[in-house]
């Protein structure tokens, strides 16, 4: 089955084409086709997963694509345990989101289009996962970027949504440029795009370290853009203008994780190049802290989740930078489930109260029991509470950082864990407990339909259980499946587990005091730490900073270029035009008198001759006979002379 795993990716593409060309008017058929395709992909992914479980591989299958003398560019499949896990994660989350969307997008005028985009995204993401060459990865990388753009701007009537789509596209494109450059450097140095060959060359020290470092950092730029890491993290919160299922699928669980996936794929480079590894680890750490601190004070439910996503992605990058291949990808998997669950839960809330602002929610647990329970489970999981999945993956990351001995980063990571617990439970308490702050919205709130709650329940089960595959006492299940070079089994560090749990519980308790018991007044807290609060509330002024520097510079540069265009280019063009006009006048004169004269003269002469000659052509047969006999006479005369 593994050799046919490209079918997993192509089923959603088929669904996309079917919907676009045949079912673009039929809601029911569109979602049926789309869901069938992704469920089939899910089933196939399960089969592939078990095959890979039996034989770790990597399984590589090459297909000829571009073949020229001296240049070969094949497409290939590269199925290793990580790819198998990713296939499973992507298809599970995607299936849940597809089903959820049936309820969430109900009544939308562009309902079939939404499903076609979802299918296209699933195709791109699955293709990204199974691609065995850097080049193929890059193609699918851009495709997910495109679908992300399409889906963020799905409600393009709203200017904010259209702007957010543009912002996301342009911002990630900066990183993609780095990816492309890194890709080219690597292929120039290695002479191939294939993962396996590149790995082999790097491990045998056949590529200079300087190239490896440059390629590694540049490719990581792609990951920075796609995974919304500092300093390109600004697009992800804005991307929340898209439909919530999209946020759950693309901007929480899968696409943004593609950066992490890519970083894991270039693990060979990170291992070789110490400087690249440190850079990656620190960027991850900074991002985690930065995003978590902003998340503390935001009021938009989806934005809080978005900052949380950025922060958790920072965790993964941090782990990978510390060489924690297993830890980073493990957290990627568990995070995909509970973050998708959080987003879908948030979507369910928004669907009920028609607002994103948690200041207008409150007390919804009575109205929406399933949503609130699953949301709480997910929050506990992300906070890292024993024995939910978040606990195990976060612990694995801590252990990895400790193993590498980056004490500063470890403290930072633990701090972020506490902040995460705090802002998640702030969100929970403000949304689901206490008194309703907007009676009108509360009155109209209701539990979402089954198509929305079932995916929530399913994902809640995964959010609890998915981490159990990585429990150190259960034969290190995950670590002995997804590993780099050799399975690495650190001894369970109880001290670290206890510290992590205590910090998380402290965060939750603080949130409990502030937003449930109201023992500490959040408003007074904000007043007391007003500069800090404002700074965080305005997201460290990153948007303003970019607006003031990069964008203003761009505008200034644009102005300069505009002037340059106007004066120099336009001047030149106008001069060329005028010169051309002048020139053409001269030639026109020449044409009129000489060329036309010659042509007309030829015509006139021909006409004059013809006027004479046509008289001979009387059309009367007897004239012709006369000429014949004249000819006969002349012939005889000539013969007799």
């Amino acid at each position, binding site marked *: 089955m593994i050799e046919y795993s490209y079918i997993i990716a192509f089923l959603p593409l088929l669904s996309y084409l079917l919907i676009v060309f045949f079912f673009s008017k039929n809601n029911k058929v569109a979602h049926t086709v789309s869901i069938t395709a992704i469920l089939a992909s899910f089933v196939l992914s399960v089969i592939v997963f078990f095959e890979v479980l039996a034989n770790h591989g990597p399984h590589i299958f090459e297909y000829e694509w571009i073949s020229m003398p001296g240049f070969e560019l094949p497409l290939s499949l590269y199925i290793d345990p990580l790819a198998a896990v990713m296939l499973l994660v992507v298809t599970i989350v995607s299936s849940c989101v597809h089903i959820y969307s049936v309820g969430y997008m109900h009544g939308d005028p562009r309902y079939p289009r939404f499903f076609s985009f979802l299918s296209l995204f699933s195709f791109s993401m699955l293709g990204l996962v199974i691609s065995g060459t850097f080049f193929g990865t890059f193609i699918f990388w851009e495709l997910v970027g495109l679908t992300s753009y399409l889906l963020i701007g799905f409600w393009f009537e709203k200017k904010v949504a259209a702007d957010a789509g543009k912002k996301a596209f342009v911002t990630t494109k900066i990183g993609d440029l780095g990816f492309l450059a890194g890709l080219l450097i690597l292929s120039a140095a290695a002479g191939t795009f294939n993962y396996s060959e590149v790995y082999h060359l790097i491990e045998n020290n056949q590529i200079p370290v300087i190239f490896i470092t440059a390629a590694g950092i540049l490719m990581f730029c792609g990951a920075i853009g796609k995974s919304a890491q500092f300093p390109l993290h600004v697009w992800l919160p804005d991307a929340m203008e898209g439909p919530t299922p999209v946020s759950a699928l693309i901007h929480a669980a899968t696409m943004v994780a593609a950066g992490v996936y890519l970083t894991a794929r270039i693990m060979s480079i990170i291992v070789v190049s110490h400087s690249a590894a440190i850079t990656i680890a620190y960027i991850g750490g900074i991002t985690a802290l930065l995003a978590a601190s902003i998340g503390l004070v935001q009021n938009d439910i989806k934005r809080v989740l978005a900052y949380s996503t950025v922060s958790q992605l920072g965790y993964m990058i941090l782990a990978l930078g510390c060489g924690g291949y297993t830890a980073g990808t493990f957290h990627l998997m568990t995070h995909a489930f509970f973050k998708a669950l959080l987003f879908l839960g948030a979507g369910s809330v928004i669907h009920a109260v028609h607002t994103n602002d948690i200041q207008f929610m409150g007390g919804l647990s009575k109205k929406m029991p399933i949503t609130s329970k699953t949301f709480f489970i997910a929050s506990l999981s992300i906070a890292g509470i024993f024995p939910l999945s978040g606990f195990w993956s976060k612990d694995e990351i801590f252990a990895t950082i400790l193993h590498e001995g980056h004490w500063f980063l470890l403290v930072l990571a633990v701090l972020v864990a506490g902040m995460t617990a705090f802002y998640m439970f702030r969100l929970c308490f403000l949304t689901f407990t206490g008194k309703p702050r907007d009676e009108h919205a509360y009155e109209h709130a209701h539990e979402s339909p089954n198509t929305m709650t079932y995916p929530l329940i399913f994902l809640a089960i995964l959010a609890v259980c998915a981490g159990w595959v990585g429990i150190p006492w259960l034969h290190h299940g995950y670590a002995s499946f997804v590993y780099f070079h050799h399975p690495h089994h650190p001894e369970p560090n109880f001290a670290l587990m206890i510290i992590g749990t205590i910090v998380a519980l402290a965060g939750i308790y603080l949130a409990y005091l502030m937003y449930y018991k109201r023992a500490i007044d959040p408003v007074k807290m904000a007043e007391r730490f007003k500069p800090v609060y404002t700074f965080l509330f305005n997201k460290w002024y990153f948007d303003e900073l970019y607006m003031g520097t990069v964008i203003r510079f761009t505008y200034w540069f644009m102005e300069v270029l505009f002037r340059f265009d106007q004066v120099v280019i336009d001047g030149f063009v106008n001069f060329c035009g005028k010169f051309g006009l002048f020139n053409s006048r001269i030639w026109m004169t020449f044409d009129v008198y000489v060329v036309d004269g010659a042509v007309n003269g030829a015509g006139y002469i021909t006409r004059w001759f013809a006027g004479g000659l046509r008289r001979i052509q009387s*059309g*009367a*047969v*007897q004239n012709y006979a006369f000429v014949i*006999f004249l000819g006969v006479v002349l012939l005889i005369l000539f013969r007799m002379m």
Partner: protein
Amino acid sequence: MATLDHYLILSAILFCIGIFGLLTRRNAIGVLMSIELMFNSANINFIAFSKFITPEALTGQIFAVFVITVAAAEAAVGLAIVVLMYRNFDIVNVDNINFMKW
């Protein structure tokens, strides 16, 4: 005693008269008649040569028979055309039938 030259000259005169008719007659039937005259002059030639040059073989006479046959066929087709012409254009004048110019 009439010699071969007598006959040939007579035939030449008849032939020329035929040509004159062919070139000048406006009536299509007249043209056909002129052609018959020319056929006859040719026949006179044939038979005169047969008589004076190959008296035993009679080749000229046999060719004269063929010529007569062809002339008869020509007359039949030609007259059919004339009749058709008259029916379609109401005229039998050749110089009015001058569609052969541009």
